[in-house]
């Protein structure tokens, strides 16, 4: 090794003392949690070929920047939800004919955009006869009074992997924007495309009104503020302050929207914390035409119950019922770290105040080592391995309370004001 290399190695050793901050792990985890689940499907080859051919003739025929559909978006059928397909059939939205070619030969084509007060939806195609390597990510739309982040997306790829069709939803776009700039990330870096946008092509809001109703739950309240129904989606917004909200992974999925007594599919939901409290958004599919009655039902939401139960442990397996909820405790083990217990409950149950009794003494839970989803006799369970300090097998397991999915059945009527 030369003197220089020795110095470089020395410097590397010095650099190795730089360790990642402790908060990094949590930040990465949170960033991933926020990322919508990836969905991918593959469309049959003939559809892709037909789509490519039709698209080619369709696109080359239209050189005008603005043109209304009057036709279905081609090649997107497979990933387009029913509501969107219908809107396109009715001639909503605006076609775009914007191209961008990447250094590796991949061509990005922006096919169309559909907008309303709840969201913006972009249709795009990536194609490369040599194969499409990658989808785009981190897309945002910018324009006058507009800075819309991408929300979620769906793509489909043909078998040869030469054509990728994608739909990406964004936060809504301002009615003042006459031009939009799409920013996206590719492996080569950040790119932008600006294209003309016609705000008049945005679809009219069907219904927009306040709700202003509160629903008390076990550890706080949920306040429903407003409803905005557009042709593409129905969005409920509100605020909540519920102490044990995130103890089970239920979110707002148990809050239902009924239109004339029929449940509307929930599309997505999200929460964000601001200075003045935590807000939530629940998105449902579009309302049917001429709705006369609307109801929000808090069917299930996180609840808490105090049980203060002592469960005597058997040699083998103990099955106990905590106010009706099943708990399976497997034989305890002594490991080098302490007393290890494997327990299982239904998915949406979290135990609170867990301890074991050893020789009449109470030892609180130290940590959870592992958590898995398992199936026993056709039923889904959440199994976890929990650890307590100590060297002797415990006589009993003590549980103070449960966070669980509770049936509230609270109904809020939303009178329709026309």
């Amino acid at each position: 090794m030369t003197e220089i290399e020795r110095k470089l190695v020395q410097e590397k050793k010095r650099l190795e003392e730089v360790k990642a901050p402790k908060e990094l792990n949590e930040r990465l985890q949170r960033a991933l949690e926020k990322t919508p689940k990836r969905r991918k499907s593959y469309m049959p080859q003939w559809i892709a070929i037909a789509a490519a051919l039709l698209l080619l003739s369709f696109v080359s025929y239209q050189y005008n920047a603005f043109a209304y559909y009057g036709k279905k978006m081609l090649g997107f059928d497979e990933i387009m939800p029913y509501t969107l397909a219908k809107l396109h059939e009715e001639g909503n939205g605006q076609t775009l004919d914007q191209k961008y070619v990447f250094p590796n030969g991949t061509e990005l084509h922006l096919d169309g955009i559909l907008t309303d007060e709840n969201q913006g939806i972009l249709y795009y195609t990536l194609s490369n006869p040599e194969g499409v390597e990658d989808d785009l990510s981190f897309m945002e739309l910018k324009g006058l009074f507009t800075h819309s982040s991408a929300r979620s997306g769906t793509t489909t790829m043909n078998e040869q992997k030469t054509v990728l069709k994608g739909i990406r939803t964004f936060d809504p776009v301002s009615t003042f924007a006459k031009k939009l700039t799409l920013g996206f990330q590719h492996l080569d870096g950040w790119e932008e495309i600006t294209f003309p946008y016609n705000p008049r092509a945005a679809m009219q809001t069907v219904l927009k009104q306040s709700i202003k109703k509160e629903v008390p739950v076990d550890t706080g309240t949920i306040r429903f503020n407003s409803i905005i129904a557009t042709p593409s989606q129905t969005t409920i917004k509100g605020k909540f302050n519920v102490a044990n909200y995130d103890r089970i992974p239920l979110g707002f999925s148990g809050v239902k929207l009924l239109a004339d007594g029929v449940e509307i599919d929930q599309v997505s939901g999200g929460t964000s914390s601001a200075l003045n409290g935590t807000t939530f958004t629940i998105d449902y599919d579009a309302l049917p035409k001429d709705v006369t009655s609307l109801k929000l039902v808090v069917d299930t939401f996180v609840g808490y119950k105090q049980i203060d139960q002592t469960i005597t442990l058997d040699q083998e397996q103990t099955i106990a019922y905590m106010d009706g909820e099943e708990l399976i405790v497997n034989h305890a083990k002594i490991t080098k770290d302490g007393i290890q217990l494997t327990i299982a409950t239904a998915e949406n149950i979290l135990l609170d105040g867990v301890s074991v009794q050893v020789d009449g003494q109470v030892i609180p839970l130290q940590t959870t080592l592992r958590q898995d989803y398992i199936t026993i006799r056709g039923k889904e369970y959440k199994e976890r391995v929990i650890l307590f300090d100590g060297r002797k097998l415990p006589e009993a397991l003590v549980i103070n309370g449960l966070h669980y999915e509770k049936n509230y059945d609270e109904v809020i009527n939303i009178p329709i004001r026309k």
Partner: protein
Amino acid sequence: MTVIRLVKRAKRGNKDALLQLINEQQDDYYRLALKYMGNPQDAMDAMEEMIVSLYRHIPTLKKNDAFYSWSKTILVNQCKQMLRKKARVQLLDEWESMEVASDADPITQSEQRIDIEEMLSYVNVYQREAIELKYFHDLDYQTIAEVTDVSIGTAKSRVFTGLEKMRNRYRGERDD
């Protein structure tokens, strides 16, 4: 669990598997991001963006065993992109210089640092980047080439020519 098995699980959309892969080399990623971003906050921001990008793009990773070099390439691209965006803003607050404090012995470390810093100042920015990626961040030439967007040959020659320049300079100083 092996890297390959974790990569396979991550490809199927398992977020925990991806997190575990990153955790294994968390400090390496962090140092790499820190080299480009210059401060812990931005380095962590870049890593957040990286992990989201990895999650989206991992199905396109062809060789499962190339996960680490692939993901580091994405991290560096992410950093460079953020720096470009920041460059516009930076004009406004260029008065505020950023310094990374080290909590180890300041005297010996700073001296050592000046030494290497001085030697690295004799080579151009491209050579310096290649040398740092190779010697401080253990990247192989293939990855360096991808990260810096040049051919392997160019990446190698940047390292060799850079080292050569430093060597000549160092020898020159000693002979004086």
